């Protein structure tokens, strides 16, 4: 049979964003793939060179629109190292709170989108319903549901409102019960298992060589989680397990993400208990006025930075819901970063597409790409 290239995208339901998967086919069999990116490129790294340090936070929310908090945290860690600022302890716990709620929100969004790719409509609605509870919590203390602008160089913008921790615990209890239902709906379904078992296999050594990180790597049995290996914020003071599976296929990635959500709930309970018992400042003092949250005006004081902070380069790495995200922030002493570079985990996971797609059939592409959890905002930046 003759071979041909077809385009899946940029407007294809399996893309979950805007990108084009070019596929070379022999009949139904995939011989080669070539992802085409860039449809969502906004030049975030370039725009950052023209903004004050705290103004870049706005862009970070747009970097990955389902995991804005994780990207804010990444940039903030990089910027704090470049500017030699240390946040107070309560801010570190609040950041873990943000990160883990964001992981729940992102994984619930993934769950909803993934099962819908498989044609299961009801779990999609359940996933979206439960994600809304997490977004409500975000709204109650940041004022926004997706683009938060909550973290600041030196801390966070504001403390939690009264009654937040009780409400959050209720949501966690509700979610814990729902995870059991999700598993019954998916793992108990023959149709689900037939579409997922043994598909998109990516073994550990291949995954490492191709730069794959996050749930995809842990589903291949490689125990690697930056929260454990290189703890940041308050993760070294909290207890949790790294979610692992060894199937290396679509089902294994499902299992890893489900277990990660349970571990997030476990982490959040500890964080909420700590926050209840330890009131304190949420922003470091002795910041230049325009860097200091929460109500500092941006103005001529920006030039204070030049005198107060020596030059520096900040490197930060966080375990984002999709994998390892890295930031490299160069501070040349001005009020803007000289250069920022972000490493997106989905960027690397997609660049390895050849290794987990070739050899399968066209109908397998939606479940496999669904299990990758693509967020194009952070790939194109």
């Amino acid at each position: 049979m003759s071979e041909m290239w077809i385009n899946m995208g940029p407007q294809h339901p399996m893309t979950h964003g805007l990108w084009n998967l070019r596929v070379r086919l022999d009949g139904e069999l995939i011989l080669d793939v070539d992802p085409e990116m860039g449809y969502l490129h906004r030049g975030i790294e370039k725009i950052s060179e023209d903004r004050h340090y705290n103004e870049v936070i706005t862009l970070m929310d747009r970097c990955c629109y389902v995991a804005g908090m994780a990207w804010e945290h990444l940039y903030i860690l990089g910027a704090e190292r470049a500017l030699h600022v240390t946040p107070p302890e309560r801010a570190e716990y609040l950041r873990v709170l943000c990160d883990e709620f964001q992981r729940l929100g992102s994984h619930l969004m993934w769950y909803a989108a993934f099962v819908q790719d498989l044609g299961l409509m009801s779990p999609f609605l359940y996933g979206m319903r439960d994600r809304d509870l997490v977004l409500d919590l975000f709204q109650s203390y940041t004022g926004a549901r997706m683009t938060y602008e909550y973290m600041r160089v030196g801390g966070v913008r504001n403390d939690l409102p009264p009654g937040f921790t009780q409400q959050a615990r209720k949501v966690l209890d509700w979610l814990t019960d729902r995870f059991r239902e999700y598993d019954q709906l998916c793992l108990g379904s023959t149709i689900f298992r037939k579409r997922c078992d043994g598909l998109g296999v990516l073994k550990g050594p291949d995954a490492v060589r191709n730069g794959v990180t996050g749930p995809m790597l842990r589903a291949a049995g490689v125990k690697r989680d930056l929260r454990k290996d290189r703890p940041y914020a308050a993760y070294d003071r909290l207890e949790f397990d790294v979610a692992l599976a060894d199937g290396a296929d679509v089902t294994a990635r499902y299992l890893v993400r489900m277990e990660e959500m349970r571990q997030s709930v476990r982490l959040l309970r500890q964080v909420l208990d700590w926050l209840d018992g330890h009131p304190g400042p949420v922003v470091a003092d002795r910041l230049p006025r325009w860097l200091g949250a929460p109500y500092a005006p941006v103005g001529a004081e920006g030039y204070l930075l030049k005198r107060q902070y020596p030059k520096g380069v900040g490197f930060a790495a966080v375990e984002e819901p999709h994998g390892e995200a890295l930031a490299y922030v160069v501070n040349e002493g001005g009020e803007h970063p000289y250069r920022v570079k972000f490493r997106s985990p989905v960027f690397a996971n997609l660049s390895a597409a050849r290794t987990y797609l070739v050899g399968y059939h066209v109908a397998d592409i939606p479940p496999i790409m669904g299990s990758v959890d693509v967020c194009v905002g952070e790939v194109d930046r």
Partner: protein
Amino acid sequence: MGPEDLQRGLASRLGAGLLGVDAFDGTAGRIRFDRSVALELFRAMREELGFGHLSTVAGIDWVDRREVVYVLWSDRALQYVLLSTFLPADDPKVESASGVWPSANWHEREAWEMVDITFDHHPDLRHLLMPDGYAFHPLLRSFKLHEPESLEVKVRHV
């Protein structure tokens, strides 16, 4: 693993091509090297020091010269390490790392289109985020955001 261990592990193999190893916050160290020993260094990092994972390749434009920063991770040491090399602005070329770590492929494509750094022996050096034929390198300092770029895309025939 710290800067001294890296220095000891690499000095004999790279000779004068190893310009130094600094301490760097959050990593095992930053290795400064001359581009002439790039491939030798990549192989030593992967085979002898166990850095099996290349996380990213960043290009930085310092106007008179350009810097390439490689970020590696070792599952054995559980640490990141940075490799840094400077290239002259009129000849920004360095050997590609994609033969050693396949993950370098896309990162180098991005560094090429954004900061105009050519990676020799790269298997597939073409545009990734910008459209084919895009004639600019947006992350160069000479590319100003405030001067609106011409709306029509200049097509470069190759």
